[in-house]
């Protein structure tokens, strides 16, 4: 999925999403602002400061800092192996960086297990779909509600009081997401039997079921056809628009990135080589070089 073709850096097709440039330099001015299409971008939600991540001798992330602001769609782009997925893994607690700080909602986050990060309201999807194949679509999405379930084991064993009431209440929420993503007809299908495009959608549904404050999407459109990509873009925009969910996404399709995102981080060989609005990034010489494959020093 490399983005070698240069025309993909051409201006986005739907310029409606092009944003009024806000203050992009982190740490500087973080006044809330309203985008051209009327979405409110708030203060800094997640702040990554000087993150360095090593695997043995390999530095997958080299001293990277950037922030994600409330309500925005933040894209992370870069060639294969640039360290994008590693960055998401740092945010979601899979990897603990050797250096640097992760700030969330104004607090510095200590080293956390992924399930603890989930409880902070951070949900994600994976580059290689990670669904529960043996379970139905409905059960997969219901698992997304886990962090909100309160009934204890005894209540569940007796299926009594809170357990049943809770199950029904959460089922209602999940049905809304099922309607939203237009997957009513596969509710009871075991996930293992679904085609690729639908699996990606179910994975998004599961992440949405958690009602996350921050949603991380690792290549949500990889391997999809044009139509599926359009559907997925629409869903992402709607999630951001209707629920005000902050989204960080990795994507190779430059057209999609330029359309969807408010701000873009560009990575290459573990370094950050660009950060700004889609327009700024598109005109950034380092970014153009990276995508055109200019030799590295």
């Amino acid at each position, binding site marked *: 999925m490399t983005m070698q073709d240069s025309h993909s850096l051409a201006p986005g097709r739907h310029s409606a999403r092009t944003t009024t440039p806000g203050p992009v330099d982190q740490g500087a001015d973080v006044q809330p602002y309203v985008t051209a299409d009327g979405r409110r971008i708030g203060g800094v939600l997640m702040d990554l400061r000087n993150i360095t991540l090593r695997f043995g001798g390999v530095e997958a992330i080299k001293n990277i800092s950037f922030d994600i602001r409330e309500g925005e769609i933040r894209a992370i782009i870069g060639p294969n192996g640039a360290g994008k997925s590693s960055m998401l893994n740092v945010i*979601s607690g*899979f990897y603990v960086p050797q250096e640097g700080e992760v700030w969330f909602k104004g607090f510095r986050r200590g080293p956390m*297990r*992924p*399930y603890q*990060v*989930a*409880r902070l309201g951070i*949900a*994600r999807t*994976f580059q290689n779909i*990670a*669904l*529960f*194949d*043996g*379970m139905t679509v409905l*059960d997969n999405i*219901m*698992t*997304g*509600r*886990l*962090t909100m*379930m309160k*009934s204890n*084991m005894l209540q*569940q*064993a*007796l*299926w009594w009081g809170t*357990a*049943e009431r809770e*199950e*029904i209440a959460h*089922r*209602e929420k999940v*049905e809304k997401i099922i309607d939203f993503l237009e997957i009513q007809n596969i509710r009871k299908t075991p996930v293992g039997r679904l085609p690729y495009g639908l699996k990606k959608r179910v994975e998004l549904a*599961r*992440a949405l079921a*958690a009602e996350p404050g921050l949603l991380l999407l690792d290549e949500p459109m990889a391997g999809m056809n044009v139509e599926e990509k359009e559907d997925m873009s629409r869903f992402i925009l709607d999630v951001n628009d209707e629920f005000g969910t902050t989204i960080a996404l990795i994507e190779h399709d430059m057209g999609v990135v330029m359309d969807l995102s408010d701000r873009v981080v560009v990575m290459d060989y573990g370094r950050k080589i660009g950060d700004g609005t889609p327009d700024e990034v598109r005109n950034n010489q380092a970014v153009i070089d990276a995508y055109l494959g200019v030799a590295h020093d």
Partner: protein
Amino acid sequence: MFYREAGDFKTTYSDDSQTFPLQLDRMGYYAVLAVAFLVVPFVIDDYWATSVMVPFLIYAIATLGLNILTGYAGQVSLGTGGFMAVGAYATYKLTTSFPDISILIHIVLAGFITALVGMLFGLPSLRIKGFYLAVATLAAQFFLVWLFNKVPWFYNYSASGQITMPERTVLGQLVTGPSVSAPAKYLVCLVFAVALAWLARNLTRGMLGRQWMAIRDMDIAAEIIGVNPLKAKLTAFGVSSFLIGIAGALFFAVYLGAAEVGEAFGINKSFLVLFMVIIGGLGSIFGSFAGAAFLVLLPVFLKNVLVGGMGWPTDLAAHVELMIVGALIVFFLIVEPHGLAQLWRLTKEKLRLWPFPH
């Protein structure tokens, strides 16, 4: 009347998540329960109780227990025999120490004790998986049998090294010991089996069950949606061992009456219960009963047909049994990992659409 869902509409989500979504299924289930409670106790004789119904119900509980761990939570265990032994020895120690307290309470307590032991031996599952976990539970199996053999306190220093169940009553009825009646034995096991199956069903359809299955299907993704792997795995070991412990308690107290640990709860038990899970169907409550019924009935059936009917020698019939079981295990592992339960489901799917399959 046709078996199908047309006209069987669900108007609430609680209806939709019922154990038996189709009304006909539900009625069939209640009919089985009614026969089991209201008819069988009056007709059951000693032969049927000892060779069929009591072992079937006890193995069904053990299979349900192992199925929760292996079928639902995806953690392999070869320690079933050892955990059954814990249930048996706990019951023995409890009832000989506190003879005035109801044996039913002791059996449930034995379940809780086994749950604790199971969680202890489940701790390695946080680090190791698959084959290595199987070996670790195998070690638990051998360790537990060794322990109950070696430490005389467990068998109250009896000369034979065996444990022998004293006579105990429930509501004035004798339920343990050599002279217990067939209906009493059967009913005690039936009550436990039905109650535990109901608990297991509730746990597996709720959030805990989803966490177990999530860990089974993809532990990384499970963690990312908020499943604490430690908690999910240990609860699976705990609930599983609770059931297996009660099965062991009943096996000793109601079925055998006296037991020598290596013989009653050896590695063979672990494999037998595992085979019941595989043949019945991984991750299915119904399958646990089907698998137990199948492997309890098969030897009885072969003995009656081959030895009794056709005059084969007993050892030949036993070999035939081994071959059949072996072939079935291979078949189910390769062709149908969801076992008899899945075959049953497929039959029902066909019936649902019958007579217009397209």
